[in-house]
């Protein structure tokens, strides 16, 4: 961007010295010789101290040189002389942001939702930052930098709320934060601390069990889920989790009983239906298995659970000697899987 200098050169009253400096500065800048460009534009600001374009171009060159300290007053002077330079405003806002003046940068960044979002975030206005960053994501979906700042905004906002939480709930929050950060041992210790202080608090054994499952520790998971089931007999999620662990541990009869109970507590929970079907299959009850998988598919058609249900149904129908139905579900499984695989590949690109 060479602000208005080209237009300037068309004016008759421009002195030969000014014209010479402007042409040399523009040429040097185009060729990447920023030091010469800065020197030429600096001459213009000295020869024409009320010419906004001179300061705007000199500030822009400083900006390109990442010399934000010099660019800020220069760009600011340009805007004092001419407030109608949108590119210069954004440049000044960015330079201010880069030098740590996020709050001061905010008024200059209205043209860039992305930069404004970051400035708002750095300025401690997380809720507004989230709005702006989400707006920016509309035009740049899955942009990793935008997603990073959005995540940071949510995280800082949550941190502000969490800072007000005290006592055992604070420990619970630290456990959940540790889970998100992948610090499993720290999370497990924090949950154990919560349980020690508030053994009646629901969901803690469930969380500990799920944590154990993430490392494949079914023995610990089973113990924790069993405790949660005793503490919260009405929790369908706890019953499902416990039943699923029993199913993996070879305790088929107990698994079937618990999964049936989970299904009674919440009959429309796809996770339960999938594992209930598998438990029925393990018990040799093909019609019951078929019923559970079909019910799942009546609830969900496109998810990973639905994909698995099609595969399971394909196996069930093959065993029931219904090859056409088996092939139909195998085909649906393949189609869903193919669609998801293509989507995964696109996402990874």
């Amino acid at each position: 961007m060479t602000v208005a200098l080209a237009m300037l050169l068309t004016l008759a009253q421009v002195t030969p010295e000014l014209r010479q400096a402007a042409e040399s500065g523009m040429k040097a800048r185009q060729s990447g010789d920023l030091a010469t460009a800065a020197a030429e534009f600096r001459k213009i600001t000295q020869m024409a101290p009320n010419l906004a374009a001179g300061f705007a171009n000199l500030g822009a060159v400083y900006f390109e040189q990442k010399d934000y300290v010099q660019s800020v007053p220069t760009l600011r002077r340009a805007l004092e002389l001419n407030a109608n330079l949108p590119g210069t405003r954004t440049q000044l806002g960015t330079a201010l942001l880069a030098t740590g003046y996020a709050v001061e940068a905010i008024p200059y960044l209205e043209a860039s939702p992305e930069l404004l979002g970051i400035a708002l975030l750095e300025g401690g206005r997380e809720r507004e930052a989230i709005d702006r960053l989400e707006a920016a994501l509309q035009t740049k979906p899955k942009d990793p930098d935008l997603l990073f700042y959005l995540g940071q905004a949510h995280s800082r906002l949550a941190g502000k709320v969490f800072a007000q939480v005290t006592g055992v709930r604070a420990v619970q929050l630290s456990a959940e934060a540790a889970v998100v950060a992948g610090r499993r041992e720290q999370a497990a210790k924090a949950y154990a601390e919560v349980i020690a202080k508030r053994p009646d608090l629901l969901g803690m054994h469930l969380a500990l069990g799920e944590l154990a499952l993430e490392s494949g520790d079914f023995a610990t998971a089973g113990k924790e889920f069993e405790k949660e089931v005793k503490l919260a007999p009405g929790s369908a999620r706890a019953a499902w989790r416990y039943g699923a662990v029993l199913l993996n541990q070879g305790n088929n009869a107990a698994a079937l009983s618990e999964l049936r109970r989970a299904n009674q507590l919440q009959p429309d929970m796809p996770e339960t239906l999938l594992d209930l079907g598998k438990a029925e299959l393990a018990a040799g009850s093909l019609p019951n298995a078929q019923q559970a998988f079909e019910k799942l598919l009546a609830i969900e058609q496109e998810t990973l659970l639905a994909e698995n249900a099609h595969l399971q149904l394909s196996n069930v129908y093959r065993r029931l000697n219904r090859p056409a139905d088996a092939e139909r579900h195998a085909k649906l499984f393949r189609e869903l899987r193919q669609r998801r695989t293509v989507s995964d590949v696109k996402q990874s690109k």
Partner: protein
Amino acid sequence: MSVKSFGLTLWLCVAASPAAQGPSLVVLNFQHQNTPTQQKYLIETMGGGVAVLDYNNDGLLDIFLVNSGRIAEGSKTFARNQPAYWNRLYRQGPAGTFTDVTAAAKLDRMPLDAYGMGVATADIDSDGWLDLYLTSYGPNVLYRNKRDGTFEDVTTPVTKASGWSASAGFFDYDNDGDQDLFVTRYLDWDMSRNILCGTPFHAYCRPDKFGPMSNLLLQNDGKGNFKDQSEATGIAAIKGKALGAAFRDYDEDGFTDIFVANDGMEQYLFRNQQGTTFQEVALEAGVAFGDDGKPFAGMGVAFDDYDNDGKPDLAVTVLALEKYPLFRNNGDGTFGYASGSTGLAALTAPSSGWGVQFADFDNDGRKDLFVAQSHVLDNVERIHSGLRYLEPMALYRQTTAGKFERNDIGTPAAYRGATFGDLNNDGAMDAVVQVLGGKPVIVYGKPQNRWLLIKAPAGTAVQAGNVHGYATTSGSYQSASDIRIHLGLGTREKVDLDVRFPNGKRKALTGVATNQIIEVTPP
């Protein structure tokens, strides 16, 4: 741990397990060389096969260990001419000692551009002596046993193959009485196309970063000459990312089928169509995916009857959190996922496995599952704090019909290939397990209960009551096991044997005394 001297450098130490209840371990003085680099070349973490075979027909099993090689930046060769990078053959003596006979057996050279992976064994020319086939990233090598304690390189352009071969195994696909060769090829990868994966630190790339390869099926003419029938049989048409393979007639149609363990994608079950072509039927048979409907990282495979119903079942070793899939043969051409109902799912969830075999390690009449374990990523702890790179071996012991319990064996290490056989002919099943970049371990089983060891032609099936055995060297991961059939028979002092030979003929032996080694030959 006690140190036992055998007067030979091969023995490093003997570790007795607590109260001598379990197996005893011997660490061999062989050093597997894989040369881990900063570039994280995939081949570094995938090798080492091992075989037990009686190469000199003295009745004692010997040990062959595959070495990998030295990786040097900018070099396309792996220093296989240097002794540190040789494969090694150890001959077992009468006292149970092992002597390095590599050079004497003329097995001290490999092509310089062969980074070693696996080994397969068979008597390819029906002369009564076991031959060797070695797989590599690079050229494979076929060694014919010269019956005088030496081997000769008889590799041809067909057996040399190309690309990256992993496991190989012999079986008779066309029922003509000789041993054909199946070779798995892993990925369309080479060192010049290596990429760096993982941020902020590098890890070995996932297989989905590279394209699939076709496997090879080489037909034996009975004299040990092989013809590539991959195209003609349809095997070449279906590409995968194959690491392991095992062979059994799962549908009892009289023709041996092929299971291929693919990494990070669906598994393949090639159904043999009357010895001419193969049809891939894994999805229809229920063995293509895990119980969660997702593909898994298939590495090693055991294809044998674990539940004494006479039908071969499948166990596949996979990565941690995928739970080793156990597929029970339903007897109708389909398999049912049995990892949950046997308890194996929960027991194996935190572990990653490679070499694997069903074998009756306590001779109680129920086959157990032995697995050589370790994650594939040497920095997996940085990626998932709940997982471990180094793991102990595990014996998943079948306690009551259809249930398993886990017994960890040995110190945590990067175990890879595993081979099985009764090394000391005491009736207890033993294992030899390769350690990536380390020293291999012999796991000596503890003699207990009664047993039979049966020498029979490859492909022979034996039934003693409800206990079934099958003569094969194939399966596991990049490894080859003893051809002899081992039967654990509980307290039975005599058994009746129903022997079915691969040529279709049967032999009934009645009142066979147990606790002995016998040989059965076709009538």
